């Protein structure tokens, strides 16, 4: 039964399986295991980014396409909710409309970008997606009447999802059962469902063609696959799932702005997560996102201690300064590209004697 659920894509490594189970349990019971607003925020962010990075893995890891426009789709989802909730009022109807429009816009844009990618070389494509994402970012900050500009949009959600709405009078295991809890489990459920869907996609015949294209497009074309169609489809699926992640994030934060969704820093973060976790493995996205978001929030405390301890040594305090956590992740990222092309997941699998992906 587990096999069917995971579409036959088992972890293939005891350590990996253990880690994934731990992550699953931690996220499923986060409100109870880690009480407090901060930890719940981290958990929700982990969920959203697992989905976002998994969708990027479909593009980069499975199809071999490098695109810098992924945050654009993330942002479209966020703004879909944001604009609908702000302009049309916080009702379920407007949320559904907002999500629907966002998903449709993403699909169409992805179609356009996908068609473009067929006519140009990979490097050209990467540069153009960078320009397109940048253009979108400018658009979002310029159309401030619509999008709230640099400040973004703050909005309310339907009553069911508000923290004020209580479903049970007394707390359950010390946790308030309110709209916030419901929102969390909504994010959890959608993330889990879409992640399993992605697993299904990459383990299907369609997914195998994508991998064939990644390995050798020329040969795939020669065998008879119309690689054009497959790559475009991959672009669209990845974009739509990223948009869904954006929708979830917007629901959780009750805020959408250029810095939470469209910034290039987020694009870089996604790259770091997918490579360190493991390209072309899906589970790599889960691992990578968890490690990254947790590090982003808690590693800095650790580094502050280390930096203080190293005071007096030249340069070392600076290197260990909490703000420099990205330096170490960047180094890890580069090392992964050279030595661990399939990231942590690949390494763990090789360690158990299984193939890396």
């Amino acid at each position, binding site marked *: 039964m587990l096999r069917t659920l995971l579409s036959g894509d088992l972890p293939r490594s005891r350590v990996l399986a253990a880690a994934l189970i731990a992550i699953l349990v931690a996220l499923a019971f986060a409100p109870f295991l880690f009480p407090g607003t901060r930890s719940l925020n981290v958990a929700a962010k982990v969920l959203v980014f697992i989905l976002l990075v998994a969708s990027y893995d479909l593009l980069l890891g499975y199809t071999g396409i*490098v695109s810098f426009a992924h945050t654009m789709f993330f942002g479209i989802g966020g703004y879909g909710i944001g604009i609908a909730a702000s302009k049309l009022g916080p009702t379920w109807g407007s949320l559904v409309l907002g999500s629907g429009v966002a998903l449709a816009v993403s699909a169409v844009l992805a179609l356009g970008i996908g068609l473009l990618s067929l006519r140009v*070389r990979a490097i050209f494509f990467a*540069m153009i997606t960078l*320009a397109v994402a940048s253009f979108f970012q400018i*658009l979002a900050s*310029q159309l401030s009447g619509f999008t709230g500009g640099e400040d973004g949009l703050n909005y309310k959600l339907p009553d069911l999802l508000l923290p004020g709405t209580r479903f049970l009078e007394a707390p359950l295991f010390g946790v308030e059962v309110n709209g916030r809890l419901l929102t969390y489990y909504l994010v959890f459920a959608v993330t889990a469902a879409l992640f399993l869907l992605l697993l299904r996609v990459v383990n299907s015949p369609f997914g195998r063609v994508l991998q064939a294209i990644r390995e050798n497009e020329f040969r795939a074309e020669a065998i008879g696959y119309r690689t054009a169609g497959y790559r475009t489809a991959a672009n669209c699926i990845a974009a739509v799932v990223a948009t869904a992640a954006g929708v979830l994030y917007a629901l959780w934060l009750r805020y959408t702005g250029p810095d939470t969704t469209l910034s*290039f820093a987020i694009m870089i973060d996604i790259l770091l997560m997918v490579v360190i976790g493991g390209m072309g493995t899906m589970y790599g996205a889960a691992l990578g996102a968890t490690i990254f978001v947790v590090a982003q929030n808690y590693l800095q405390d650790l580094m502050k201690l280390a930096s203080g301890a190293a005071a007096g040594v030249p340069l070392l305090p*600076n290197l260990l300064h909490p703000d420099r956590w990205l330096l170490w992740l960047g180094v890890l990222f580069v090392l992964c*590209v050279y030595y661990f092309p399939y990231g942590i997941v690949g390494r763990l699998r090789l360690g158990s004697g299984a193939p890396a992906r």
Partner: protein
Amino acid sequence: MTAPAASAPAAAAAPAAPALAGRRIDWIPLALVVALAAAALPLTGSGPTWLTLTVAGLAMGMMIFIMASGLTLVFGLMDVMNFAHGAFITVGAYAAASILIALKGSMQEASVAANLAAMVPAALAAIALAGALGWFFERVVIRPVYGDHLKQILVTMGGLIVCEQLIHVVWGPDIIPLPRPASFTGAITLGDAAIERYRLLAVAVGLAVFAGMWLVLNRTRLGLLIRAGVENTEMVESLGYRIRRLFVGVFVAGSGLAGLGGVMWAMYQESVNAQMGMQVMVVIFIVIIIGGLGSVGGCFVGALLVGLLANYTGYVAPKLALGSNILLMVLVLLWRPRGLYPVGKG
């Protein structure tokens, strides 16, 4: 010797001889620059405003050219897209800033000679440090992944992140203000037009760099090798040249130019921050795409177009300004899908 009759028909069958015997440079893209400037004149309303904007546009274009030219040449010759190019720009700017701050006194004097006494060492330091970083990058970071474009993109992006963080480590996270040299602040007036002195300096430096590159590429054997190599590296090797030994040199030169561009850009903005290289990368990519990957001349024209357009639209239609260069890129690609001056490998 040979049978002239047999070869004469061959010559006659070829397209009409003497008219094509001379060189034919494609003047259209250059004409575009002039056309753009001319079109802007009625739109800006007044002559003096137009003049100010045009100089500003040319200055911006020149600086972008200096920053971008290395990247396009490296890509054309070595088929390597260095996404970390922005780091060379930033490093150059910081290196120069350190020197200019140390020589603050010289910068604040109102004499050109004193200012240059500070600026020239600063520029040299920028070129040297950026060049050294480039050398390190080519040898250690990029060499293992020649030919694999995917890994190149990832590795150079990683390098960019690490460089930016290291800049924070060495120079601190704060924005460092960088005032312009005293004799190049302010503006001179030509009739009713106010033209910033610094911008004139930028135009002069840009033209000098372009002239220098043009001379090397077109009048030296080294330049000949590079131009041929951009078109077809294999053939150059088949003619007996170990062109791969040139790669490091070209990469270092390109990085040094980026450093120089960084200095000019930093003084233009009057501040240095760790993101400045990354911030300008999108514009640089747009410029080299417009110009044609691998073409220095195309990069020059593209940079001027982008600089002029940004300044004109900034005055005439400010809302369009930020997105105007992307629109320009789309238009150019619709006209010439491989850029203004397509070169070899593209």
